[in-house]
């Protein structure tokens, strides 16, 4: 597997919405390389025809009756918000 570049680290950090400085990106690159080199051990395992496991118990598509219930009251939902206004979460501008 190819080495990880600093640009790749910055791309991943952008996807993860984490701001990184050039120094941090360099450190993360080293760590990611070490960890990915370690996990590549899995390539030794023959998994032809093996189904992936996402859930360990034999259950899928759990359904329930579609009964409407009350949601949380607005003042409680906003209680932990860093900023709110007029009953809504307040954020900086989204559009330029």
């Amino acid at each position, binding site marked *: *597997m190819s080495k*990880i570049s600093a640009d790749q*680290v910055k*791309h*991943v*950090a*952008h*996807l*993860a*919405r*984490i*701001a*990184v400085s050039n120094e941090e990106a360099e450190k*993360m690159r080293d*760590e*990611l390389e*070490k*960890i*990915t080199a*370690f*996990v*590549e*051990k*899995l*390539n*030794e*395992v023959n*998994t032809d025809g*093996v*189904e*992936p*496991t*996402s*859930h*360990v*118990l034999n*259950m899928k598509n*759990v359904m*329930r009756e579609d009964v409407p219930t009350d949601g*949380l009251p607005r003042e*409680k*939902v906003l*209680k*932990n*918000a*860093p*900023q709110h206004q007029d009953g809504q*979460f307040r*954020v*900086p*501008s*989204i559009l*330029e």
Partner: protein
Amino acid sequence: MSLFDHKLSELQEFLHKKEITVTDLVNESYQRISEVDGKVNAFLTLDEERARNSAKSMDKQLGNESSAGLLFGMPIGIKDNIVTKGLRTTCASKILENFDPIYNATVVEKLHKADTVTIGKLNMDEFAMGSSNENSGFKKTHNPWNLEKVPGGSSGGSAAAVAAGEVPFALGSDTGGSIRQPASFCGVVGMKPTYGFVSRYGLVAFASSLDQIGPITRTVEDNAYLLSAIAGHDPLDSTSANVKVPHFADSLKGDVKGLRIAVPKEYIGEGVNEEVKKSIKNAIKVLEGLGATCEEVSLPHSKYALATYYLIASSEASANLARFDGVRYGYRTPEAENLIELYKKTRAEGFGDEVKRRIMLGTFALSSGYYDAYYKKAQKVRTLIKKDFEDVFQNYDVIIGPTTPTPAFGIGENISDPVTMYVNDILTIPVNLAGVPGISVPCGFAEGMPLGLQIIGNHFGESTVYQVAHAFEQATDYHKQKPQL
């Protein structure tokens, strides 16, 4: 002698005879906390006023316990990633430093029905990512047996508080060993139940396909009572299993005659400390002496469990932790020009290094072009690891081995190299990947530090796991030793 040296059934009898009150039990907790928590650092937040008020109102019911819950009046500490209404819940992260939950986790509602008294919230590695509590965003918990050593993690606060006699009961959570490893390091009993047996509603999610809440206590019997109180199907957690919850304490007969016990050769092989191996050989002798048969088996994919775990857990974490964005709750960066910058700066400033490292690994493993090579590959290997366990359980009742490859290590010893730190979880991780239950019970000492015997059962085989754990505990006296603080 502390009141907490008595087991639950004895304390219930004392309460029933009015020899003690719930207030006495709550006093005992806060008294001990004021004496030792300055050294141990197990608690992040105390709930003293509410605890004392509940104790007072419970004391009015004394002598009339017909309606009393299973754990009437018992002080309990709760890991700080389990939400408690009106009681600060931080996940030991700066990003949730002032988070005040507006509802209770299902397990907390169940504890209320069982009539426990919540003493406070316990320290952990940030978002449960770590094996030493050194990743807490607030403070490091110390091992009560030796303050220079780590308590383990991520439920290090829970295990240390029980070991130090601050609370007789605690809840932890276990994604790759986070209940069993600290229980082993601190010489207490910690159980990770079958995946889906305990509701995860209100447990702040780390890796949703692996996370389970479970009890940490001083004895197997107390542990069994606490699990009976918190387990069961929950409509609010669609992954919770619809199975009956047995009264586990009834299966504790001290008898293992005729049980077939498997000992995986991979669990006592390379990388496992000699003293640890010795303690397991001794445990095998004890169990054989009680009439069980022990045979060596193989779990051939064990060596791939760690890599599988780090891909799956980090991938799931990168998705779960997307919710911490500085908009609806938690920390927000003081200055941001636009929304994207708000997200990025909030997360860069709010998360610690290990959390960022795992979000980065998970995001990378799920990103376009890498998904099949990393995430999907890991899920396929997970199937093989799970099958290893299924094969063994065709012929055996339980699997035993060490909980950890070494006793507790020194604070600062492993923090610099993430992969060395991860190796600590090598014997506990396969259990989470397979979704089976596992317990750690004290089984010896090395250089004055406790060691743990791990007993693993088949899916929903908790009764058998407790039966073996209890028989071993009753035949030994490791659990009777207490740290001197």
